[in-house]
Structure formats: C-alpha cells, structure tokens
C-alpha cells in the first residue's frame, strides 16, 4: 500500500548544515520587514531579493553545476525552502522557476533550452509563470482549448489562459496547449516555453478579493513561437504536466502558507496560555511536525527518481487543511478582530491570511480533485 511509502527520511547532516547560514542571511536581509509583509511570503514579489538568493546559490540548487546549479541534494533545497517560508521571505518572483520550470526544463527541455534558461533561473534573473488553467478548464485541465498550430517552422498560438500567477511580471510562461486539433481530453497536448514579450500577447491583471493583483488573464492572438519553444515531445504534454504536479504538491509551501500568523498568534497569546489556547497550539505543532516528516518522505521519493503522485496529494490535502485551520483557530482563541487598517500587527496579519486562506486548497489542484486522486490510488475508481 502507498502508505508504506511514508518512511522516515530525516534531513541528512550535510543538508542540515546549511540551515544556520540561511537563517543568518534571512535574519539580516529581512530585519526591517514587518510581519504584515512576511505574511505574504510566497505572494511577495521582490526581484532584488531573488537575485541576492541567486548569488548565494539558493535558486535551482539541485540543478547540475554546468547550468549554474549546485548539484545539491533535494534535502538541501528543502532546508532552504522551508527556512525562506518560515521567515516569510518574498519568494514569489523566482518561485515557479525554482520549483517547477527549472526541473521541468532540465528533464524534458532541449539542450538549447537548458543552456539558455537554466543559468538565468539559477541567477534569479529569469522568472516563469505556469499557464495551465483556462476559463472553462480549471479542475478539468484535460479540456483545455488554447492551441498551437504548426505553420512552417513556427507554432502559432491562439486562446486564453487565466489565473496565471505573476504573468504580468514574468519573462516566460510554460504553457500547456493543444497541438492536435482533432485530439480529445489529455491526448494531443504539448508544453511550450512562451516568451511573454512576443507580439500578440495581452496580459490583464485580475484583482483578488484583497484588492491585490497577483494573477492574470493572458490572451494569445496569433502569437508566433519558434520551433525551439516546444518542451519535450509533441503530444506528451499531459504526462509531462502530471510529473510536474508531484513537485508542485508536496513541498513545505503546502503547509507553511500561514506560518507567520501562527507565529504572531504565539506572540499575542504570550508565554502563559489558557487551557484551550495551549491545547490548540500544541495540536497545531504536532501536526506541523508530522507534515514535515510526510513532506520529507515525498522528497526522498522524488530524489530517488520515483513519481509519488499519490503521496504528494496526501501531503497537500492534509497540509492545506492545516494552513487553513490556523486563521480559524487564531480567530477562535483570541478576542482580536482582523483589521485591514489600524489595529495591531497581529490583527493585520490575521486579516491578510484569513482572506488568503480559501486559495490554499484551490491553487495547485482543489481539495476535491486531490481526494479523487487519493481514492483512485486506493483502487476505488
């Protein structure tokens, strides 16, 4: 049974050894950043900060040295990522490239793509966004309609993507497009690296419920891509995307999104909690300790070259439930109203994460879709 894949995979000492350096760097780099901005963490966009991380060798760490990576183990990367998130660092600029696009290009990309993109990703200079969702294709991703048609030595792209985080400030999108007009569902799909500065591309930011703009609509109107923009094999887009999702669904970002709120809640409760506060803080801590172990077990599987899609879904489902519970408990455990203006720092952190929380179980695949994957893995479908 897949549950047995959750084996104890401690962080090896050589990976653990980086932690102090990362923590020291972050303490210094984020010294003036208030909790309200730390709370944004993986929505926080700071290109300068990303470049500083790149200089340190902390982006694309697991990539080969010849492409600017450090050939570090998956566990070293894990330590860096969780320290960044726990400190509330603004990671969003390089986030998708580090987590998904870089590994994807390394795995499926052509030599030219690797030579061009990977070093710039590692330097923290090239930012990517993920073009999967479309207006009529969210959970049902295999139903996408945006297309790329061959025309001589070009691909002509038409259609629309939506909810594309950071499209307005990224250099490239990895887009999933239909390359066979007669294909249905998950056949005939292919992945492309789309240069977002090309003519025919319109990007319109969408305001989210907090009033901020992180995600976008992206329109393609006869956009001409060079033949070299295809990633991997024509028609194999679905298999490539599925492999990518295991990377997307199991990392510490799937349970640390509201960690700043947990920290600020601890500050607001103080050193002497009442019984109810102590109980819930203890329970959350126990779950966090366990989620880390589960996520590390998936990391070990990925590092061993397996595709732990089932296990990753389990981690994401439990993880997003955990991070969504934190604002609920913060509200329940203290008589502090969330405040978007005025109020104390804790009230503002609470206001921000309370409003962000619904997205945790949407982005990267909804709770219902993940439960479906888990059930299928149990042989129920």
């Amino acid at each position, binding site marked *: 049974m897949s549950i047995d894949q959750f084996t104890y995979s401690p962080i090896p000492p050589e990976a653990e050894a980086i932690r102090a350096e990362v923590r020291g760097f972050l303490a210094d780099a984020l010294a003036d950043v208030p909790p309200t901005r730390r709370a944004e963490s993986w929505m926080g966009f700071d290109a300068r900060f990303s470049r500083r991380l790149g200089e340190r060798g902390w982006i694309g760490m697991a990539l080969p040295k010849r492409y600017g990576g450090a050939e570090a183990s998956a566990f070293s990367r894990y330590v860096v990522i969780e320290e960044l998130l726990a400190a509330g660092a603004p990671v969003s600029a390089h986030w998708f490239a580090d987590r998904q696009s870089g590994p994807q290009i390394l795995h499926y990309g052509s030599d030219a793509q690797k030579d061009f993109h990977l070093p710039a990703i590692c330097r923290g200079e090239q930012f990517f966004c993920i073009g999967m969702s479309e207006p009529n294709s969210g959970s049902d991703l295999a139903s996408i309609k945006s297309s790329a048609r061959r025309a001589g030595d070009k691909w002509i792209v038409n259609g629309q993507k939506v909810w594309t985080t950071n499209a307005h400030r990224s250099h490239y999108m990895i887009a999933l497009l239909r390359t066979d007009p007669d294909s249905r569902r998950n056949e005939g799909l292919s992945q492309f690296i789309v240069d977002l500065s090309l003519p025919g591309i319109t990007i319109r930011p969408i305001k989210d419920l907090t009033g901020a703009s992180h995600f976008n609509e992206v329109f393609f109107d006869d956009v001409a891509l060079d033949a070299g923009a295809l990633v991997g094999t024509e028609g194999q887009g679905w298999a490539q995307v599925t492999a990518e999702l295991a990377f997307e669904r199991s990392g510490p970002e799937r349970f640390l999104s509201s960690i700043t709120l947990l920290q600020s809640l601890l500050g607001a409760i103080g050193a002497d909690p009442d019984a109810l506060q102590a109980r819930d803080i203890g329970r959350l801590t126990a779950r966090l300790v366990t989620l880390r172990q589960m996520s590390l077990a998936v990391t070990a599987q990925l590092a061993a070259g397996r595709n732990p899609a089932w296990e990753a879904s*389990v981690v994401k489902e*439990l993880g997003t439930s955990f991070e969504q519970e934190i604002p609920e408990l913060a509200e329940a455990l203290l008589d502090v109203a969330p405040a978007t203006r005025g109020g104390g720092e804790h009230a503002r952190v609470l206001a921000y994460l309370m409003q962000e929380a619904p997205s945790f179980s949407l982005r990267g695949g909804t709770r219902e879709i993940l439960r479906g994957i888990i059930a299928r893995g149990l042989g129920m479908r």
Partner: protein
Amino acid sequence: MRQMFDSTVERLFADLTSPAAVLACEDGPWPQAMWTAVEESGFPLALAPEALGGAGASWADVCGVIRLAGRFNLPLPLPEAMLANWLLGAAGLAPASGAVSVAGAGALRLRDGVVSGEALDVPWGDAVPLVVAVAGGAEPAVVLLPTGAARRRDGANVAAESRATLLFEDVAPVAQAPLPAGWPVDVLLLGGAMVRAAQIAGALEGVLALATAYAGERVQFGKPIGSFQAIQHQVAVLAEHAAAAVMASEAAFAAADTRIVRLQAIAAKICASEAAGIGAGVAHAVHGAIGFTHEHSLHLSTRRLWSWRSEFGSASAWSQRLGRAVCAAGPEGFWPGVTDGRFDTLQEQSA
C-alpha cells in the same frame, strides 16, 4: 532486522488473531496459549539488551511489530511487555520472565526498600504477574512489582481489554534500580504514548483496508458504493489520516535511540489519536448497518481505536503540555523548536 521482524510477526499474528479468537478474549480468561506463542517468538524481549538475554533491537526495528499488533487487534500486552523490558534493560536489570505490563500513570513511592501507592489503568493488570513502574522517592527508581501483592480494582477499556488499578502497600519489588540519570520520571507514560500511536496507526491501516474492500463489494443503486464520490472522499480522508499516523509513529520510533525523543513521541500520539476518531467514524459510515453489528469484525478495530487514543495521555492532555512549552518558547523560538525537534520546557516539565 526490520523486514524479518515484520514478516515473522505478520504470520504469527495472522494465525493467532482470528476474529473469534480476539472476541473470546473480551472479558474472558487470560489467553495463555496465545501468550505462550507470542512469548516463544521472543518479541517481548526484543528491546532488552543482548547482554541481559534480549535481542538488542532498536525502537526503529520494532515499529512494524507494534503497528502489526494494532492491525491484528492482538489482545495481549505485547507492546507493553516490550516497553517494560526496554526500561528494565536501560536500568541494567534483567528482563521479566513471562507476561509483564507497565504502569504509565499513578503515583508510587519507594521508601525503605518497599513500594506504596497506586498504579492506574495497568493493561492486563488483572492477569499479568508482573508490572514495571517508575517509583518516586529520594531518587526515582525503576521497579518490577508483583501484581499478586496488590489490591486490585478491575476495569476495562471500550474494547473490553483489562485495565486494572493496582494498590500497593509496602510491597518489596522483585527487582529495582535507579532510573538512569537525567531520565524523565514519566518515561513510561511517554513510551506508552509512542507505542499506542503505532498501534493506532496499524489499526487504521486495517480499517482502511476493510473500508476500501467493502466499498468495492457492496452494491447499491446498481453499482459498488465505492463508485460514489461521497464515499471516495470519505475514504480518502481516512487514508490521509492513517498515513499521518503511520508517518508520525515511524518518525518517533526512528528518532528514539537510547532515549525516546519527547517532541516526536508526543506529536505521534496527538496525530494518531486525532486520526483514530476520524478513521473510526469514516469506517463505520462506509460499512453502514452491517459494521454496527457484533457479527462484523470492524468493531474489533474501531473499539480499540476509541480506547487507545485516550490511553497514556489523550490528544488533549498531550496537546496542552506541548502547547504550554511552545508558548513558553514564543514566536522566535517556535520554528527553531520545530526544526531542532525540541522545546526546552517540554523536556524540563517532567525531568
């Protein structure tokens, strides 16, 4: 070692624990033949040092054994005996011969070479001849006590497993030694919590297997109920929590070297106890009325889940202790505490 242990024990337990055999133990006589078979396997001594006649296995080696004891509803204090003999060994004492249990709660004092006080809810306290406890006093001691010398108040948990309270009055221990220096006096409560977490994890694996199998067989509205998304999602939630309980227990057992790592053990008990309630609920929902019958074997597991989650400290009790330590560490100490696997006042509370 791990694989050999797991496969040996799986065969042994499969032979011993038919639903009828487990049911017969409920409020029934001590199953001597079953215990003898387990004793002959040597597992009660697995964690005792080789020099003292044990197998010198580590906690990591036996996590599977204890998970399987949970999965098969083994109606015997095997996990307790393993814990008891581990502590005796750590204190330099020979393992107990025969059935032995542990006292995780209560208050015992050692004075002038004799023990007085009460040991609460001792598993199979009405049947085992010996119990291991930590007695307070000038310096805390590991004591091996004869249960026959105690007055007894019998009790049972929801799975009708004996939980007897033993009252000792000036009873001379069969063996005694100082608790190893720096060890917490609540080591048996902590060890019991860790062991119960693994039993719960195993029982949840069993319950998950029952639920998925049943969902594939039971037909309503012309198709197996497992093809209904509502059922699929419930079973998925059960699987998630079973996985969490397994992971948390495995991590706690693996981290336990000579000492049990407090944060890991407590986290395991909290997560497993929470998972127990969720898992039992889902399993019953999926089975419908048939699972609510005495006839069906589901309750052999679910009644144990409801029992074990409360034993050796409930999720609430441990969460409060952990939560107080986390709050004492404060916002700055929180994340380092998680990554270091320790919160200072969590250690001190019981030292």
